[in-house]
């Protein structure tokens, strides 16, 4: 018989979903925020993002090829591009290229490939990179240019400013609620055009663009609502209670819209590999991240707590997976 029959175990049908679709879906969801960052930070943002993405892809390719010596390279599945993009979003738009390269190397090399590549990393690679840079280069990592500097100057010699989070921290430290009046109003926080006191990493300034991306991902079923909503709700409730107890803590709406909270809740915490598998687990994970974030922001040394909160909960993910089982069929008797 010339034509062979193909055999395998069932199922013989397969859905149209694929790793690439999911990864590029997240990248598409990041596009609004990317465009906004181009508008606010201009060339600086483009340089940082491109460097970060290219460096991540290159390191993944090089490590797979020369160190792991695997035949199949995984750079086409979009995960390295995504890591690069997220890393770039977490950096300020005037960061020197060599620091970005170090960040990308740590993110891909230590954060991802040492554990075996895609699917094996316990921590979100982009956050590993960012955390490494934050503790290694604290000065560069915490000087943020203010939005609205489009030209090359925005990269080389940018005018820097205070982030909303720094203002909040200052209010808490000084115990003076009037410091908070320097905060931009909620609308400009959401849009990101908050002038001299609205500085930040290039991906985090516009909460609205990130929310649009999040809704896109939920509609496309790339992520479920559980993690982002539980984080945001927890932060809202926790910071709202603090605000009611003592007005030196900023209002919950401002807390939600400022800093990397949206970026973290929607794009970083929902990373497939490092988040829990079950709905119950995802809710626990989300709530814990929310509590940790606010706790670090209000009581910790750093003004921003999102990335550390996610990294801490990444470490707990295997434990959550072990104890949070899905509802088995037959458990709800009658």
């Amino acid at each position, binding site marked *: 018989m010339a034509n062979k*029959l*193909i*055999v395998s175990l069932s199922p013989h049908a397969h859905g149209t979903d694929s790793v690439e679709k999911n990864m590029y879906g997240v990248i598409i969801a990041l596009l609004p925020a990317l465009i906004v960052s181009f508008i606010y930070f201009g060339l600086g943002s483009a340089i940082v993002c491109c460097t970060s993405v290219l460096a991540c892809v290159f390191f993944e390719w090089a490590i797979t090829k020369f160190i792991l010596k695997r035949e199949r390279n995984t750079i086409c599945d979009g995960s390295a591009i995504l890591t690069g993009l997220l890393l770039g979003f977490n950096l300020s738009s005037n960061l020197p290229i060599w620091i970005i390269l170090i960040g990308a190397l740590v993110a891909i090399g230590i954060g991802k490939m040492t554990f075996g590549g895609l699917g094996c990393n316990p921590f979100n690679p982009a956050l590993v990179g960012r955390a490494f840079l934050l503790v290694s280069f604290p000065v560069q990592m915490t000087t943020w240019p203010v939005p609205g500097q489009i030209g090359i100057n925005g990269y080389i010699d940018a005018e820097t400013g205070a982030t909303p989070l720094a203002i909040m921290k200052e209010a808490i430290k000084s115990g003076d609620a009037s410091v908070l009046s320097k905060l931009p109003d909620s609308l400009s926080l959401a849009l990101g055009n908050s002038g001299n006191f609205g500085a930040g990493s290039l991906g985090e300034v516009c909460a609205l663009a990130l929310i649009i991306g999040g809704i896109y991902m939920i509609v496309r079923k790339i992520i479920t609502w559980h993690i982002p909503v539980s984080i945001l709700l927890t932060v809202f409730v926790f910071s709202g209670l603090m605000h009611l107890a003592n007005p030196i803590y900023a209002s919950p709406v401002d807390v939600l819209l400022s800093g990397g909270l949206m970026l973290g809740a929607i794009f970083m915490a929902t990373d497939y590999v490092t988040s829990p598998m079950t709905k119950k687990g995802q809710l626990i994970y989300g709530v814990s991240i929310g509590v940790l974030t606010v706790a670090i922001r209000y009581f910790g040394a750093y003004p921003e707590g999102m990335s550390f909160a996610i990294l801490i909960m990444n470490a707990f993910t295997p434990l959550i997976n072990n104890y949070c089982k899905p509802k088995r069929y037959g458990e709800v008797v009658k």
Partner: protein
Amino acid sequence: MNVILTAVIVLGAVGLIAAVVLFFVSKKFAVKEDPRIALVNEVLPGANCGGCGFPGCGGMASACVKAADSGSLEGLNCPVGGSAVMSQVASILGMEAAVSDPKVAVVRCNGSCENRPRIAEYDGLKTCRVVHSCGAGETGCGNGCLGCGDCVAACKFDAIHINPSTGIPEVDEEKCVACGACVKACPRNIIELRLKGKNNRRVWVGCVNQDKGPAAMKACKVSCIACGKCVKECKFDAIAIQGNVSYIDDEKCKACRACMKVCPRECIYDANFPKSIKEVMKAEAERKAAAEAKAKAEAEKSAAQNVTETKPKEKEE
């Protein structure tokens, strides 16, 4: 100065208390282990292969000690260390070791791509167990080797490898310790532990196909069709047909290779003989032919002599 002194005193005190606590706890919760177990464990190879049937060498060691206490080491054998290790174990425990003949893993299938036509293409997880549960596999033989290498993965001694040209695993008898891991891993029971035999010479049926003649013939060129010729040929009653396939009992087999000469399917194999059976058969055939030729020549000669002898008679007459 004062600070240093306080620190030294405090730390020293903490250390002392911890040491006391540790001392008493270790006394209290000490696990009493027979010292012989450690000794036995020492002489075992430490491969933790599980070939003895216990989970690792530690398990084997405690089983040996237990067995020694109950009086006999029978049934316990370390396939890796063989009788050398077992006699050492026995001397530690003051016993006599049960002697067992060395064995080796034998792959009873020769269904290479050449011999066994592929009728289907398997497209799934490439492990023998999965293919086995999926059906007969890529060939028409429901008993033969699937070639996905579960045995290779199971071997801890790097002694079995898939031959890329045939797709069938081959055992490296130098390395094989007959731990039986591959036997357990094979879902089709193709691999068997057989006696190594005298001078390592052994004979076995290299087929486990249980189909009836025509189906077996169609599936593979070198399949056993249970014709029974080998059974008749064997002088030592070592061959029997079970479930449509011939099987040579390695305890009874004397490695005379008479069965190989008659097998029409050439599915009986040998190892470590100086000459292949074909050479032997050829030599025998030549010898026979020579003998026949000689006999014929002699017959002719004697006939001629008779003629010559009779002729003179005629002449005489």
